[in-house]
């Protein structure tokens, strides 16, 4: 076996790949070779570290030096300085927002310091394309333990005792789901992994599949043993090519080592996994719709009961669990239910992965114990709001969720607290909004999404969301009337109670939640014909500040409708009647003399 004095971890997840980490990787390999260091320093391709906006990311062990935004051109210097002379390259180190000095080591960075990595334990640390690296981190140990030492019922009890709840959105107790499927009678049962991550702004499932695919495969086999199934399906979005590729490779490697397939560990247990690609339909994240899609049909949901645990895929007992849920399973088996239950709050155990995005300094993927406050997430881990702006709200749960306003920033985040404030855990997308985000526009944005993705099977969802979207568009166009708010509320109630599946039942949430916390913004749009955040075009007006205007005439020359007039070297004026609010003048003005509001 070769011994290396240093290991360089380079992220090849979707985020860093988009920032050209592949170029960096080939340059690094080339440069190490040119300096005769290829036998001293090992380069390892890993999955996502989570700190995507700093990509491409490179970590050097044993020191744990964290380099960010490394370009191909920087490599020569890194090799010369760090690997030959032993001095980290200062300028490529991470600097906390507002800090003077750089932070050298991975573990000292605020973004990582407050995290607790369970589901993401291996992401960024191992090469996901090598099963040996997963095994070296105790991989497939849990499966071996289950097959050698535990009965299926003991496995189910362990999961039940851990308090693990579904990480895909609903938060249903995982152990209970397994129990139902284990109790159901059937000659054939199925384990299905829901990797149809559709909530905009959530990408933890993709990162787990890209960074630690074997964790999911191992957990699926454990689930198969627990409920008595020998076939698994992973339903993954076709939009995630790297994840699909790594899963395929992982399945082949596991089969070759006898960790999937016939007679696993020689214990007489058979289990195999097939991949099915989603074809771009949000509703297929709903479990009954997902199962119809795996069967090769239009992915329309069907009424429950019967629940999939009794009648699922091809009418056989089936469990459907999310990727992150599965990633927790192997660790629960390995370290015990008590260990898992020691983290989190009374009714929400363990940790949760959040995708932090929007108007925040540090965007990326984080994992924290359940019950962490929004303040810790946004300010300590997230580094605060972009450009020093004011925090307005955080949106969780995607199109099914709601907003948590600034005044509730100290709410401990868990399933029940989020539901209580009218938001939802969902799959863990957490989008931060600042004072420049219009909440009515955001509600309209989500309704546009659900309206478009409504499969059309049941009228409350198909027609109701359409009517709601029309009203919201009317309001943002400045044509809102007082009865609109009442109509929105009535429609929302009907759609929630009468829709067939969760897509419709939760579609009104973004509207209800913004109405609850930001009713004043709706009223400003309707009564004052103003958009306080300055987003809704129809409600804006452009003005030239006479003191700042130098009379250069650039704005007038760029106005497509000749709405700006004046004399050269004297302040110009915008004719509000003619103005079409395109913003061309504001873009062109070199003196910041044009204001909108």
């Amino acid at each position, binding site marked *: 076996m070769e011994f290396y004095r240093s290991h360089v971890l380079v992220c090849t997840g979707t985020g860093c790949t*988009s920032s050209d980490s592949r170029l960096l990787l080939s340059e690094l390999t080339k440069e190490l070779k040119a300096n005769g260091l290829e036998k001293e320093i090992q380069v390892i391709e890993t999955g996502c570290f989570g700190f995507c*906006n700093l990509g491409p990311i490179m970590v050097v062990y044993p020191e744990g030096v964290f380099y960010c935004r490394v370009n191909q051109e920087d490599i020569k210097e890194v090799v010369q300085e760090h690997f030959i002379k032993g001095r980290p390259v200062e300028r490529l180190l991470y600097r906390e927002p507002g800090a003077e000095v750089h932070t050298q080591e991975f573990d000292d960075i605020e973004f990582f310091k407050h995290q607790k990595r369970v589901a993401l334990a291996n992401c960024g640390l191992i090469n996901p394309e090598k099963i040996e690296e997963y095994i070296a981190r105790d991989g497939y140990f849990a499966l071996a333990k289950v097959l050698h030492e535990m009965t299926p019922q003991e496995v189910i009890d362990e999961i039940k005792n851990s308090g693990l709840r579904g990480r895909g959105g609903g938060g249903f107790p995982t152990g209970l789901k397994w129990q139902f499927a284990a109790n159901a009678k059937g000659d054939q049962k199925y384990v299905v992994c829901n990797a149809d991550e559709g909530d*905009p702004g*959530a*990408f933890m499932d993709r990162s787990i599949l890209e960074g630690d695919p074997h964790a999911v495969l191992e957990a699926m086999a454990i689930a198969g043993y627990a409920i008595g199934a020998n076939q698994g399906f992973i339903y993954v979005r076709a939009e995630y090519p790297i994840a699909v590729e790594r899963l395929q490779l992982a399945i082949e490697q596991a089969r070759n080592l006898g960790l999937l397939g016939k007679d696993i560990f020689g214990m007489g247990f058979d289990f195999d996994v097939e991949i099915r690609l989603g*074809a771009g339909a949000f509703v297929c994240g709903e479990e009954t719709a997902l199962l119809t899609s795996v069967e090769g049909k239009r992915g329309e949901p069907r009424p429950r009961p019967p629940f999939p645990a009794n009648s699922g895929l091809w009418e056989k007992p089936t469990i459907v669990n999310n990727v992150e849920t599965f990633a927790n399973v192997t660790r629960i088996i390995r370290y015990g239910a008590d260990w898992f239950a020691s983290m989190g709050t009374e009714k929400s155990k363990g940790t949760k992965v959040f995708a932090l995005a*929007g*108007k925040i300094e540090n965007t990326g993927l984080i994992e924290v114990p359940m019950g962490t406050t929004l303040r810790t997430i946004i300010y300590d881990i997230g580094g605060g709001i972009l450009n020093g702006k004011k925090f307005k709200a955080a949106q969780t749960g*995607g199109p099914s969720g709601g907003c948590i306003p600034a005044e509730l920033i100290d709410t401990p985040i868990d399933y029940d607290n989020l539901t209580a404030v009218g938001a939802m855990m969902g799959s863990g997308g957490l989008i931060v909004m600042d004072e420049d985000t219009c909440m009515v526009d955001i509600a309209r944005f989500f309704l546009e999404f659900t309206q478009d993705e409504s499969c059309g099977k049941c009228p409350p969802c198909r027609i109701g969301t359409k009517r709601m979207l029309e009203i919201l568009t009317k309001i943002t166009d400045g044509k809102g009337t007082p009865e609109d708010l009442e109509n929105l509320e009535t429609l929302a109630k009907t759609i929630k109670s009468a829709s067939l599946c969760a897509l419709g039942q939760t579609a009104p949430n973004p509207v209800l939640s913004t109405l609850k916390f930001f009713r004043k913004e709706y009223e400003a749009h309707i009564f004052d014909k103003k958009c306080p955040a300055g987003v809704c075009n129809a409600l804006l007006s452009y003005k030239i500040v006479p003191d700042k205007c130098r009379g250069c005439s650039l704005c007038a020359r760029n106005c497509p409708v000749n709405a700006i007039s004046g004399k050269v070297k004297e302040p110009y004026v915008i004719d509000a009647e003619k103005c079409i609010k395109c913003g061309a003048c504001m873009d062109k003005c070199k003196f910041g003399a044009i204001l909108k509001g």
Partner: protein
Amino acid sequence: MGCQCQCGSEKKEDKFAFIDSIIERYKEQRGAMIPILHSIQQKFGYLSEEVQAYVAEKMGVPLSEIYGIVSFYALFTTQPQGKYKISVCMGTACYVRGAGIVLDELEKQLGVRVGETTKDGMFTLEACRCLGACGLAPVLTVNEHVHGRLTKDDVTDLIKKYRDEQ
């Protein structure tokens, strides 16, 4: 012709022979209609009525069922696509960071609306669902390649880059 697929030039028999081979490949797999259509679209770029009718006949299902699947999923298209497919992510993270403005600029510069292809067959403009690259918001993809941290001002160079590759 900007389109790279061989849909126009290929003989009908060759096209059908390819479809036969795909159906043959999946014959053991239960519920394989979506992967079959996916593989065919990857080869020809889109699913024409002729292709759908042929698949229906070979699989022994009504054409309406095939069309039902094709029209249900966003991934399938019944129209020829441009050489470069620009998909602007309209996920929440990209939206709050200005993806809408980038999309408007693309519409303006390419002279097409979302869902349309430029006359020279070079670009198809699409608005797509969250790509999960939220850390780089706003993002778009051109075919498989992801471009992130975009502003309205990057649009001209981006289009030029792909036009110059011709």
